[in-house]
């Protein structure tokens, strides 16, 4: 299917062209990876500050508290608290998960797994990273402003996010940063979609693509359609802030004409709900592949998994209104959004069944990527099922804006995506850097992440059901919430524990980078295209463009006689004696 532009680019020779302004998808993937890991650390630190404040209000944050908040003796003040949860959300969604799952894996896996020499538009790819970089600088710089960074929540609902609620340049810079990030994401997305369509190796039909590519491709399609909507939204918001327009202003402050703050919520969530799936689809794809690879048998119902993911992609564009039930839209809209939301459980149930079908009667190897993948099945199960309470109008009326929502979306967007990202990182690290990561440390990292993670997010579900609402600096000004102190403490202690175990990961990452065991070409014994070439691959990936002759999950075929239990995608499918 190689109709595209797939020739060998000359290898860059200078440091500058090789590592900085690189057009090579593999280098850009690593750039995105380091960028994502940096912001993951920053966002994680913010999470710890938030948790500390919620559990020990009025007590100085240990060690670095005095450095960060010298004027309040190390205690997080209420305005900084609002800034912290706003930045935590923004950073984790746009600057940690998006670059890691989409930027790093998208760039690394798409060309290698479909047998291409690079992306369809290498220069656009380079620009995509540098726009993201610029956006990151704007966002981090806004933290240093005299009035601080944006503090209206990552959703930035007007009129709080207009001049009425947020004076100071922080919110404006937030808009600029998000717009720049949107530019970056859109460029990446257009590139991924085109690459998958035009540069698949000869013989590779859509259903011969690994499910990872399916996930990344569907994500890119959603990104290309809906990120520009957010871009438009933040431009309108910026105009309201700096040019005196009133798109989103109403009420007593709208002295020069009245707009509608709810309009922004529509614009935001028509992007925002697909965004949830933008983040999770790559992880679903990775998990679908890895479950098969480490069970040593083909992915169960791979085609229906791919189609179910496609169905979710389409449905995700039609359900955004369930974020707005409490704004009291018309009952007809409310009913429609509730019903459409519920239909998402059909495809979700199908690929859950397929995941379990994949490990059924397998021969399961519990290597670290597999452990993380099984972890995703567990946490996404919890995340998905708690979504039922929130998609239902009457229960949502009670649960909306409580920690139940926070627990739910952290299970789906944070826990699942983080575990899926780690699974992918442990899996492709040997290919990316030519060295193996330490398996013992990886397993310690897994259990040290998985157990506290459930303490955190299940605890959040519990305090949310108990009635504690979101984004409050000190929940215990409400007497009725004081009974939740023990659970809140558990959540915070789990968060500190989980944070500490991430140090194991960082140590493993850095150590393996320099001292890890040299990786063979195919350490996991799987047959997708990227494992047919050396680790790490040469600059142009494939000397000869491979010809694909079978599917990506050919494992455990009893007719194989060559001592392997898997086949490369470049090999003719071995048939049994009919």
């Amino acid at each position, binding site marked *: 299917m190689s109709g595209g532009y797939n020739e060998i680019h000359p290898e860059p020779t200078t440091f500058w062209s090789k590592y900085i302004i690189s057009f090579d998808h593999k280098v850009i993937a690593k750039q995105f990876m380091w960028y994502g890991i940096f912001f993951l650390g920053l966002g994680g630190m913010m999470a710890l500050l938030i948790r500390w404040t919620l559990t020990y209000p009025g007590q100085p944050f240990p060690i670095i508290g005095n450095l960060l908040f010298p004027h309040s003796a190390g205690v997080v003040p209420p305005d900084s608290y609002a800034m912290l949860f706003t930045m935590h959300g923004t950073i984790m969604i746009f600057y940690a998960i998006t670059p890691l799952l989409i930027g790093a894996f998208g760039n690394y896996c798409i060309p290698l797994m479909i047998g291409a020499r690079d992306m369809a538009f290498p220069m656009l790819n380079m620009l995509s990273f540098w726009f993201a970089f610029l956006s990151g600088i704007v966002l981090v710089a806004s933290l240093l402003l005299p009035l601080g960074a944006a503090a209206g929540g990552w959703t930035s609902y007007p009129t*709080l996010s207009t001049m009425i609620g947020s004076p100071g340049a922080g919110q404006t810079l937030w808009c600029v940063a998000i717009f720049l990030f949107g530019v970056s994401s859109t460029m990446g997305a257009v590139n991924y979609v085109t690459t998958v369509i035009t540069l698949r190796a000869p013989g590779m039909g859509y259903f011969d693509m690994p499910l990872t590519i399916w996930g990344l491709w569907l994500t890119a399609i959603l990104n290309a359609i809906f990120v520009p909507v957010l871009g438009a939204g933040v431009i309108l918001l910026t105009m309201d802030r700096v040019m005196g327009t009133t798109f989103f202003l109403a*009420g007593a402050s709208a002295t020069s004409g009245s707009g509608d703050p*709810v309009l922004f919520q529509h614009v935001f969530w028509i992007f925002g709900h697909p965004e949830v799936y933008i983040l999770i689809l790559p992880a679903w794809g990775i998990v679908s592949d890895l479950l098969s690879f480490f069970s040593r048998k083909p992915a169960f119902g791979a085609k229906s998994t791919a189609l179910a993911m496609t169905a979710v992609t389409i449905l995700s564009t039609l359900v955004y209104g369930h974020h707005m039930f409490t704004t009291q839209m018309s009952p007809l809209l409310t009913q429609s959004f509730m019903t459409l939301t519920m239909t998402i459980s059909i495809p979700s149930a199908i690929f859950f069944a397929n995941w379990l079908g994949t490990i059924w009667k397998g021969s399961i190897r519990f290597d670290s990527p597999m452990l993380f993948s099984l972890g995703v099945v567990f946490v996404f199960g919890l995340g998905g099922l708690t979504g039922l309470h929130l998609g239902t109008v009457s229960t949502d009326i009670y649960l909306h804006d409580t920690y139940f929502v926070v627990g739910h979306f952290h299970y789906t967007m944070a826990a699942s995506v983080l575990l899926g990202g780690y699974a992918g990182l442990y899996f492709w690290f040997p290919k990316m850097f030519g060295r193996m990561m330490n398996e013992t440390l990886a397993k310690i990292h897994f259990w040290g992440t998985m157990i506290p993670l459930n303490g955190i997010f299940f605890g959040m579900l*519990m305090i949310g059901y108990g009635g504690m609402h979101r984004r409050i600096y000190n929940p215990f000004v409400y007497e009725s919430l004081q009974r939740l102190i023990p659970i809140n403490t558990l959540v915070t202690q789990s968060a500190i524990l989980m944070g500490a175990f991430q140090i194991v990961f960082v140590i493993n990452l850095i150590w393996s980078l320099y001292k890890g065991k040299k990786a063979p070409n195919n350490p996991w014994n799987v047959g997708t295209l990227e494992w047919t070439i050396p680790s790490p691959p040469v600059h142009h990936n494939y000397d000869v463009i491979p010809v694909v002759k079978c599917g990506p999950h050919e494992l455990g075929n009893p007719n194989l006689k060559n001592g392997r239990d898997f086949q490369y995608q470049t090999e003719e499918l071995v048939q049994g004696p009919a």
Partner: protein
Amino acid sequence: MDFLQFSVSSNWFKLSMPVEDISTNGHLIDGLWNYTTLLGIFYFILVCIGLFGFSYLYSHKRSKTPYYTYGNKKKHLFITAFIGAAVFLSVDLNITRLSNNDMLAVFWKWPDPKTEKVIRVEVMAQQWMWSFRYAGADDLFGTADDIVTNNDLRVPMNTKILFHLTSKDVIHSFFVPSVRLKVDTIPGRITRVWWDANKAGQYDIACAEMCGTHHYLMKASLTVYTEEDFNKWLNASQTIAMTTNNPEDKNLAWGWKWEY
């Protein structure tokens, strides 16, 4: 030791229960929550049986030869489709139907002040307080005899209370955990909520939507009186309002004409 841990954790589940429901209809929301949770637990147990059971039975140690299948035999496709349909029919359609019935029969069935006894209250939210307005003796809003309170809502029990809400500055959200209800207050719009409380006492009203630095302090108290006590309070407040309401006071002039 095991027993001790169990008692700690069951105690935690008790702690995480919502505050007592004091309304006639809050049990509908609690009931649906319980129903959804039970179904969720059922399906999650199925997932866990698959996840842990298969991981145990088919680990490399116990299962040397994997079953080579694409899972696209008729039987397999049937099972997958059956699971998808079962989840949708048993959970989603059911809770959608139940929720829709509750919304239509109760929460969206606005009491009509013309035909039944309804206490009407106008609510205005602003950074960071709640103001409540009762129509007063002339039964009209926005007039000089209105009773206006700040962060202090008092209502009678066993009477329908209908609220019309708006906001002066940013979006807030009127959250009364004790009756399980919540509605956003939006500048430029009027939203509605109604309840019927059946237990006297004092409860919390919170702002649930991020509304700025002191969002966490935006709380009001809800006092539910017996009808008799309420009337006593109302009459006393009416007298105070008549003597102290200053028509020039701009802070009191926010009431609007009650429509629909």
